[in-house]
């Protein structure tokens, strides 16, 4: 099923939670809404589920407007951040709840519960209560319960945020596998941009009730369109520059001339974004590189690579280099950073990014 949001707006008192948001989720697609707290991502999800009524705009399932349809008639499965498992019921009764409410005949119901238990690897736990399950198991029960009624849409509200890092990674993969196997349209809310990049077909980066940019993971990462997206997704070194020559692609940053890919006719202030892995350390002689002289401050070991903090003109730069090439580096010593102009992304100067 296709979900279409058309100019959705929601206010809570004076606060504008969602501001004229439009979005299409294609059948079988997983779209992630990602943003900081208060950006309106959960409110959007709750409007799709029917728990909040939009003040303006339309929600369409395929071509049907569902604005006035109460939550229990939307046939939408939802996994809550707190899981919201019924503590008075066993795992099996939790999964069967929606089926009982819909008066499924008992044999069919039992078969469906068994199917869901198998799908979510909960075998042997059917008789347990929520407080006898680990966090990861509770999460899978919540998913099984949401999917049991064969909903046409699956909504996930920070489904992994309460879990340990390792389990989170494993369940992320499992969630994605189940969603793709079932071919169910899904909306996935998270504040964790890395999680969004890894699980979603497309990512909608939200800010102040609007979608700042929407696109596939590679697109969002490699070609951010605003300073906010460049800063929020992954790690970026953002330089506030001034255009010197649009024709030659030259900007000025703190008195340094840098060559970057500029659009013809660019003028005034721009932001240049460089990912840490696009910066290299050393004095290799290739002529097409930009070079900056800095001082190494901190070296952080991160397994396959190390992250350096290098100060250039009083501003810290993040630089990722392979671990085996970092052995010769010494703190407090000057070094040269180099980067290829094509690896820079030039953004219009925008409002300051929300941390």
């Amino acid at each position, binding site marked *: 099923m296709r979900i279409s949001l058309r100019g959705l707006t929601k206010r809570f008192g004076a606060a504008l939670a969602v501001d004229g948001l439009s979005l299409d989720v294609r059948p079988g697609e997983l779209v992630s809404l990602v943003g900081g707290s208060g950006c309106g991502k959960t409110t959007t999800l709750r409007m799709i589920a029917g728990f909040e009524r939009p003040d303006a705009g339309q929600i369409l399932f395929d071509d049907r407007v569902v604005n006035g349809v109460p939550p229990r008639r939307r046939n939408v499965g939802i996994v809550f*951040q707190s899981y919201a498992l019924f503590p008075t019921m066993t795992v099996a009764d939790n999964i069967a709840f*929606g089926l009982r409410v*819909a008066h499924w005949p008992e044999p069919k119901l039992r078969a469906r519960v068994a199917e869901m238990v198998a799908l979510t690897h909960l075998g042997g736990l059917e008789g347990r209560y929520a407080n006898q399950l680990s966090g990861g198991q509770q999460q899978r029960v919540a998913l099984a319960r949401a999917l049991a009624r064969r909903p046409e849409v699956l909504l996930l509200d920070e489904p992994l945020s309460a879990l340990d890092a390792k389990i989170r990674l494993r369940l992320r993969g499992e969630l994605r596998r189940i969603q793709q196997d079932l071919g169910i349209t899904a909306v996935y809310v998270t504040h964790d941009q890395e999680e969004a990049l890894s699980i979603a077909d497309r990512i909608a980066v939200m800010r102040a009730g609007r979608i700042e940019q929407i696109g596939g993971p590679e697109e969002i990462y490699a070609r951010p369109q605003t300073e906010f997206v460049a800063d929020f997704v992954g790690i970026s070194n953002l330089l506030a520059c001034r255009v010197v020559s649009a024709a030659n692609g030259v900007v000025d940053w703190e008195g340094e001339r840098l060559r970057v890919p500029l659009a013809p006719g660019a003028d005034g202030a721009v932001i240049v974004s460089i990912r840490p892995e696009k910066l290299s350390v050393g004095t290799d002689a290739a002529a097409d590189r930009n070079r900056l002289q800095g001082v190494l401050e901190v070296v952080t070991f991160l397994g396959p690579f190390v992250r350096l903090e290098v100060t250039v003109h009083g501003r810290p730069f993040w630089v990722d280099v392979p671990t085996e090439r970092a052995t010769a580096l010494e703190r407090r010593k000057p070094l040269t950073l180099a980067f290829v102009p094509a690896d820079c992304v030039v953004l219009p100067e925008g409002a300051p990014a929300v941390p």
Partner: protein
Amino acid sequence: MAPPPWCYCTNVTSSTRTAGGVLVLLVTFVLWPVLKVLWLSVAGAAGLTLANYEAFFSSSRLARILVNSLAVATVSTALTVLIALVLAYAVTRTTIPGKRFVSLMALLPLISPPFLVSLAFILLFGRNGLVTHGLGLDWSIYGFTGIVVAQIFTFLPPAYILLANVLGNMDAALEEAAENLGAGPLTTLRRVTLSLARPGLASAALIVFILCMTDFGNPILIGGRYNVPATEIYSQVIGMNDFASASTMSVILIVPCLLAYVLNTYWVGSRSYVTVTAGARAAVRPTPPALRWPLTVVAAGFALFTAVIYALIPLGSLVRLWGSDWSLSLKHYTFASTAEGPWPIWNSVKLAVLAGLIGTVLALLTAYVIERKRPPGARVLESLGLLPAALPGTVIGVGYILAFNVPPLLLTGTVWILVTSVVFWKFPVAVLAAINALKQIDPAVEEAAVSLGAGSVRTFVRVVLPLLTGTAFSIFVYFFINGMVTVSAVIFLIFPGFNLGSVAILNQVENGYPGVACALGTLILVIVIGAVLLLRALVGGDRVAILKV
């Protein structure tokens, strides 16, 4: 650097000494009186005997009294918990208007003498009652009906608070999940919301049952000829000076109460569902109109009726002669019907302040020793401190007379017997509140103080106590209110020249001066509400909470 070993040694000895002191106090003022009662009930001229118990159960009148109280407590409990459930649900899980008012009215009995409700019902439905007299009915509320109705309004707060906590802390996502899975409002209510409240309901029922079984004020005022053990114990001590029978009946009364207490603590207590987890939200789903309006009518009706009941007390104090002369007058405030005048109220204030100060210090100290120092036998301390929750006030009263009318602890005839009875009878709620407050404080805060070189005393005074000020004031208010309004234990312990306001109200009703009783009741209400508001103003708003029973 680690603190030197002797540092730990001084800690151990000083906390052991404190624990010992608390133990001595609890044994003296909780266990000893109960043992005296138990002993007297089985002491015969020639050693131990069960003769008193045989006499009790062979007397159909006395056995009847026990059946009476079980019947009254069962009916009162069922109705109280049902009403509390409806009100708690309406206030915490729906979007009805006027929730604050309903909540306020449900909690009002917490700060009033327990039998003011009875007095109000007598003004409405008594022999000269507004309704009965006005309609010329040949019926009055005295007896079973009166006790049940009065107990519902008196003992609603603990049940209401408990259920409002259970329902109010429920993760709203649970109801949303049910709705998302296709359940309608009634299915959600039945299958999710109420099934979560089941342990809370059991707990509320057991607590209210104990309160109804041990209730003294309502039965003696509105019970008429319907006797219950609490009032029978009183008349045997005061009327016949028969302490052996009174002790026997006390022990018999303790049994069902202790049973209910143990059930609640060890059985129900282990069954509550914790539903608040990370990401839980408290917001409430909009209530469908079919549910919203009936609930609004019931809740608002109840709240308004409670308001009327409490308005009747000041009103009754201003009417010249209730039932016949409705003109307004201040003559009841001259207290001409009693030689004591309004002075019993002043004695009540003295008792309340002393009980407040001493009780607060002891409760905090006991809680600190139990929760943080964990000396050997901490469980014993805790059990002793909480035991009075299962003890009827009348038993405390009888026990204190038996225990403290002989040296070395000759307390009868002094204000101290009243103070200790209030402090230790009301100890459980205060200690639990302090323990819970301590549990909220990360022990690492104290460890930090110790690691920085602070000793045990300095840590408590400089670090722990400032974090407990809100709790301390709440506990003070709790003891203060109980000092002002309690009647069942202190009625045995007052002495000539030192009557108390709450007991004076009873005297005035018995002597046929309901107007004067209302005047005394009004004064007590004003003092209690005034003191709570004053403390809140001094300490700052919400830091002073009214503790539940």
